[in-house]
Structure formats: C-alpha cells, structure tokens
C-alpha cells in the first residue's frame, strides 16, 4: 500500500488512470459509507427510543396500577408514599399526579405538592395544545434535554373515570367526570444515550475498518490489474518508439489488458517485419541499382563494341576491295610462275608457299567481312558447314586456341539453310568463344552438323560441344538473358547468347543447351532446312 502510494507520488499518478479510479471509487465509498453509517445510526437510535417509550408507558401504567387501591380507598398518605417510593427508583427522576384542575396532588418531590399549573404548562400542552381547550385523551411523550447532560423522557398519562371510581364511598369524583387527573413521569435516558453513543462509535469503527480494508483491496487490485500492466505497456511503447522492436511485453493475463499486450506484441513484431522488409528492400534496391548500373555499363560497352564492329565491317569492306586486287595479282602470277618450275623443285615449293599465304590473307579478309554484320543483311541459301569453317578460320590462329583441339564432324550432305550468313557467323563465333572460355584454353571443342527430321519437318542441327566444367543449374536458367555473364566486366558483355537466341529465332530455329557438371556443355542449334525450288 505504502509502496503503491509512493509509486503514485513518484509518478504524480493522481492524474493516472489508477489514481482517478481510486479517487472516484474512494469518494463514492466514503459518501456511501457515510450515508450508510448515518442511516444505521438513526435506525438504532429510533429503535432504542421506541423501546424506551414503550418502557415509559408500562412504567406509567405501573404507577397508576400501584396507586389504584390507595385512590379507591382515598388514602392520600399511602398514595404519596407509594409515589415517593417509585420516584426513588433508579432512572426515575420525578413522578407526579395532577388532579383535574392542574394542581399537583402527589409528587416524588414533596415541595411540588399543592402547586397549580395552568393549561400552558408543558404537562398540559400535550393534551390541550398551545391555546388548548380541547383535551386529547391520549398519553403524550416528550423527550427533552432540560439543561441536563442527558436526555429525559417525559410521559403524561390521563387517569380516566371508572365505575369503581364514581361508586366508591369517598364520592370524590362524580360520574360525569371523564378525566380524573394525570400521571406525569420523568425518566432518565442517560443509559440510553450512552448505549446510543457506544453503538454509534462501534458502527463508525466498523465502517472505517470496512473502508480501510476495501481501499487496500481495491488499490492492490487496481495496481495489479491496471497500473502495473499500463506502466509496462507505457515502457514498451517508449522502447518501441526508441527503435527497440525486439521488446516483448510479458503480460499473460486473459483480460483486456492481456489482449492489449498481445496486440502490442503483435504490432511490434509486425513493425519489425515491416522494418526488416524495408531495410531489405533498401538493400536489394541498392543491389538492383548496382546491377542496373552494371547492365547499363555493359550495354554501353556493347554499343561501343557493336559500333566498333560496324566500323570494322566498313573498314574490312574497303580493305577487302583494296587488298583482293593485289592478292589476285600475287595468286595469278604465282600460278604462272609455278608452271615454269617442275613439280618438286625448290622454287616450285617456295612459290606454292607464296600462293598459300596470299590465299590465307584472303581468307582472313573474308572472315572479317563475314563477321561484320553490315556486310550482309539478306538471307540466302547457305551451307552451314561453310559458315562454320569461315568462323573457325577467324579464331583458329588466335593464341587462345593453340592448346585447344578442334574437331569437326560435318555432314557432307547437309541441307542448305536460308540464312544471313554473317549473322550465323556471329552466333557460331560466340559459341566457339564461349566454349574456349569454358575449357580455359585446354580441351576439345567438337562441332557437328547433321540433318534431322521430326514431325515438324526437316532441320539442320548444329552441335557445339566442349569439355568444360558445365553450367550450374542456377545459372542455366539465365544464360540466355541479356547481360547475364559470369565473366569479368570488360571480358564478357553477356549479350552473346541473348543475341544468338534472337538471331536463331529470327531464322525460325531454336537454340538449346545440355550440360553436365564436370563433363562439359553442348549447345544445339536447329534451323529449318531450305527446300530448293525445282
């Protein structure tokens, strides 16, 4: 309790929920208990007074009865003595008997005897009312303080005329007289007052104890059910606001506060999830931006590359034109010269070397021309075997290919294909370069061509097989995507297979891949066979 109040003070929590609840309920309880206390107290008092009054009536009745004999026999002394005896009893302050004219006939206090009171005296007022001429026949009861420190019960009871009275020998009362006199008794209510006081005190103590117990219970309940969880919640909120999303509220009650805590925990974990997602998103965004930037760089590189290729193509065309004429001279005169020396002679062999080398120059030029897309843009029936040979001529003397074994399995009766040979050459060159990169300069590249027929028609199939490491499953799905490459920037643009795929599709064919980890990779190209018009 003290702890709770300390806490409340520390937190100025009269403004808090608990404070307000305690204040409200406390006030209600104090007011309620006060009313209860007051009503109970009043009820007790009335009860006690009523029983006192009842007792008073019996007492007066008793006074009359005990003097009945004295009166009937008119023994005034006996009456006076009886009155005095009664008056000396404990709690009896005064007993008086008045005659019908208001004169005190007998009294426990002898000095009073003979005194006459008029109708305005307190004794008479009960029956005769203030102005009083019409007497009431009922006994009157009056409780007054009368300058004493306890209250006094004053009872006045008329003495009525009876047969025995007016037939008695003394003939003191005529038959017509209705009321013969009155008995007035003043009884002390000191005991009553005391017990009322004691009872009031007891009730007060009970109520206070009750209030105290209820308050303690209420405070404890409120503290445990509301204040503690609420301050836990508040702390949780502060933590979460401060960025601690791992904070978990440990309130497991089944009530509304528990539900609130549950909702709070759910909210925190949702927040955390959302935050994580955001962070991750931010990260991946960064990564995506980076990827895109790289892709753009690659695209730029590719653009430069293709620009280079295009100008290379133009240059090759010009160079080819210029060079082929002198080569024609070399070849022709070489042959003419060749005829002048017998076969097997040293000169003959030397000239043959000249001719061969001139032819090689021409082959290189043709390779370059085939490579430059600009040099051919239309489809025509072509022999795939020739296109592959052209492609091989371009690469096979490169240093990269010195340790590579190149095997060709050409079908001599291969159908022609309607195609742009320079574009096909681009496709084949990329496949050859990819294979060479995969086997890292050592191994075998096998190129095969064959006619195949299936229910969709006649096809020419070209296979490029290498003995490289194969392609991961993870990458396999991506190799035809533009810009996908596992090669360092600057070496691969990742466009090779993408462009190839496009070119082959454009030719009505398809390109596919089969690979096995550690054993190698095969790329298959299928192109529709060209049917020559008869």
């Amino acid at each position, binding site marked *: 309790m003290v702890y709770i109040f300390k806490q409340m003070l520390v937190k100025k929590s009269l403004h808090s929920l608990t404070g307000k609840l305690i204040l409200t309920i406390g006030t209600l309880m104090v007011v309620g208990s006060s009313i209860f206390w007051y009503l109970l107290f009043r009820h007790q008092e009335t009860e006690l007074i009523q029983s006192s009054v009842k007792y008073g009536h019996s007492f007066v009745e008793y006074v009359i009865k005990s003097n009945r004999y004295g009166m009937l026999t008119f023994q005034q002394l006996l009456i006076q003595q009886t009155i005095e005896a009664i008056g000396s009893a404990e709690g009896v302050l005064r007993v008086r008997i008045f005659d019908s004219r208001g004169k005190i006939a007998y009294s426990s206090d002898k000095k009073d005897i003979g005194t006459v009171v008029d109708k305005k005296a307190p004794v008479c007022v009960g029956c005769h009312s203030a102005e009083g001429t019409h007497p009431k026949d009922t006994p009157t009861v009056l409780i007054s303080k009368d300058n004493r420190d306890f209250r006094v019960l004053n009872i006045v009871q008329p003495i009525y005329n009876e047969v025995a009275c007016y037939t008695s020998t003394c003939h003191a009362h005529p038959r017509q007289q209705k009321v013969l006199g009155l008995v007035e008794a003043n009884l002390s209510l000191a005991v009553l007052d005391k017990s009322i006081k004691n009872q009031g005190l007891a009730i007060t103590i009970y109520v206070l104890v009750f209030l105290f117990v209820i308050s303690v219970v209420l405070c404890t309940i409120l503290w445990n059910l509301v204040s503690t969880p609420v301050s836990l919640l508040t702390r949780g909120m502060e933590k979460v606001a401060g960025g601690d999303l791992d904070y978990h509220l440990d309130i497991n009650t089944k009530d509304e506060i528990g539900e609130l805590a549950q909702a709070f925990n759910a909210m925190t974990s949702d927040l955390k999830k959302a935050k994580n997602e955001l962070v991750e998103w931010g990260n991946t965004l960064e990564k995506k931006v980076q990827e895109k930037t790289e892709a753009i760089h690659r695209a730029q590189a590719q653009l430069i590359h293709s620009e280079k290729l295009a100008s290379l193509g133009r240059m090759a*065309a010009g160079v*080819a*034109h*210029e060079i*082929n*004429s*002198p*080569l*024609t*001279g*070399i*070849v*022709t*005169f070489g*042959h*003419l010269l060749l005829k002048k020396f017998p076969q097997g002679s040293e000169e003959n062999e030397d000239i043959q070397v000249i*001719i061969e080398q*001139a*032819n090689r120059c*021409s082959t290189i*030029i*043709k390779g370059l*021309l085939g490579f430059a897309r600009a*040099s*051919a*843009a*239309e489809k*025509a029936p072509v022999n795939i075997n020739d296109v592959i040979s052209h492609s091989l001529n371009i690469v096979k003397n490169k240093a990269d290919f010195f340790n590579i074994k190149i095997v060709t399995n050409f079908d001599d009766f291969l159908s022609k294909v309607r195609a742009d*040979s320079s574009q096909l050459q681009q496709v084949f060159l990329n496949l050859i370069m990819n294979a060479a990169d995969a086997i890292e300069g050592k191994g075998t590249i096998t190129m095969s061509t064959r006619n195949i027929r299936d229910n969709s028609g006649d096809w020419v199939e070209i296979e490029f097989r290498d003995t490289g490491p194969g392609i991961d499953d993870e990458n396999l799905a991506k190799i035809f995507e533009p810009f996908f490459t596992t090669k360092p920037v600057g070496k691969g643009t990742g466009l090779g297979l993408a462009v190839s795929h496009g070119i082959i599709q454009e030719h009505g064919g398809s390109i596919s891949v089969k690979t096995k980890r550690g054993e190698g990779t095969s790329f298959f190209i299928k192109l529709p066979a060209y049917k020559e018009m008869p």
Partner: protein
Amino acid sequence: MKKGIILVIDDEDIVRTSCSRALTPSGYEVKLAKNGHEGLSIMGGDKIDLVLTDLKMPDMDGIEVLKKIKQDWPGVEVIIITGYQTVDTAVKSIKLGAFDYIEKPFTPDALINAVSKALDHKNKSQQT
C-alpha cells in the same frame, strides 16, 4: 586459232594484267579497259565474245556495265569479278543476266574454267 575475244574491264591494273596473263596462254584474245566507258567504246568497235567486269569501279560500276551490255549486245556473256562477295549483289547480277561471278583473288585455273564455261554456253545458245 582464237578461242574467243574477251574484254576485261577493271580499274586496277594488276587485275587486268593478271587476267590477260592467265587467259592469253590458253588461246584467248584479251582486250583491256580501265573503266566502264572505255569498255563500252571497245564493245562498239570490236566483236567481243565475253566480258569480265569488276563490280566496284569509280565512274560506272559493274552492274551498270552489265545492264548496258545486256541491253545493246545481248549475245555477249558477262562474268562479274567481285572484290568481296556479297550475296545480294551476286544474286542481283545473276538476275540481270550475268553468267557467273568470280571472287578475287582467283587462280588462273579458276578463271579459265569460268571463262570456258561461259563461252561454251554462248556457243551452245548461238547454235540453237
């Protein structure tokens, strides 16, 4: 006996010389022209059996020469010499009536082979 009179039109001296040196020993008479105009004027004077013309020349290109010859001397066969073979021009020239095309650099044998085929074709078509 002369196997036929052949006109070689090429802006490059070495090509003209090569052709004449390759063909003459086989019994062909070879006339030379540096460009299309010169070639056409020779056509107007002499009786030519076969024309070998380069495709790419400064003033008038091989295709034009081919058209002109086929228009004015339909009986004369034409073989196109190309510096670099492009499929479309080759197809185009065949469509326009060229008998064949031959790629530089060519060997004397290849040239003689092409020429004799063309002349055979010409003789055959003239007989019918």
